[in-house]
């Protein structure tokens, strides 16, 4: 598919839009449909599109395996870490109200961090799973 100029050009034009839309969905999930899971999947879909059109070698060069493994673990640690921080601040596990001076602000901050963790792990897992399947074919 690398040889098809239409696919190449259109992919290069739409990829930034896909990533931008993924970030929009991530941060706008408080006001409309969206949130961590959807944003993570859309982010991964951008990378998968790049891998489909330009080949898995190009995708591996863009996203090394170490980054993927780090991303898979980092999101979950962020989520669980928010809970540990609230434990340290005197509340129960994942009681976001203790994170800021008022309970509502604490909830906002807690939900923001938690959804960010979800988005990072979901994106990394989806790209890693795609690379695992795509890299299995005979070269």
């Amino acid at each position, binding site marked *: 598919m690398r040889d098809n100029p239409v696919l190449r050009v259109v992919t290069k034009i739409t990829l930034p839009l896909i990533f931008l839309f993924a970030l929009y969905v991530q941060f706008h999930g408080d006001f409309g449909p969206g*949130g961590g899971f959807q944003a993570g999947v859309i982010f991964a879909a951008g990378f998968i599109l790049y891998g489909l059109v330009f080949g898995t070698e190009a995708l591996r060069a863009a996203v090394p395996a170490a980054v993927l493994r780090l991303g898979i673990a980092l999101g979950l640690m962020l989520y669980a870490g928010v809970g540990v921080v609230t434990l340290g601040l005197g509340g129960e596990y994942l009681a976001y109200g203790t994170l800021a001076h008022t309970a509502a602000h604490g909830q906002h901050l807690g939900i923001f961090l938690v959804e960010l963790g979800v988005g990072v792990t979901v994106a990394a*897992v989806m790209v890693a799973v795609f690379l695992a399947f795509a890299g299995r074919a005979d070269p």
Partner: protein
Amino acid sequence: MLIEAINIVLLGMLAVTALAAIRLHDLFAVVMLFGIYSLLAAVVFVVLDAVDVAFTEAAVGVGISTVLMLATIGLAGRHEKRPAHRPLLPLLVVVVTGAALVYGTLDMPHFGDPNAPVHQHVVPRYLQRSADEIGIPNVVTNILASYRGYDTLGELTVIFTAGVGVLALLGLRRRRRERPGPGQSPP
């Protein structure tokens, strides 16, 4: 009235897609029909006011699931072997199970009934108090991340485990055909 008509048409299309997916033996067509099924399900979710769920089903069902299934049939083979004998026992099991489920739905509240038991108890509390306690307009995000945050932590752990499992089974390294060196036996 229009909503009911749209619902009926969409569910009819879903039924046609599912029945076609049963009958076909070319797995590429079956996976594509599954993608269509997921997209129709996402439209049904929008009609039923579940916008978050529609978003997720469209992204995950049509995007990730279909891509992974296509990758698998690329690796495992595209054609299904035709069955040697007619599957009468599975058909009987399916009919009996379907009849039992339909009998079970006779006690259910009508579609759209605002007095159904599922709308009592804890949901009015979420809808009324979440504006003061959390202040975020999207109630689904509220419940997902704050009121039922433990469940979401568990869900994230499930995704993490699936990612680790797939990496353990398939690995991220390029799979090279190993050529035996001098004096070594073939793999």
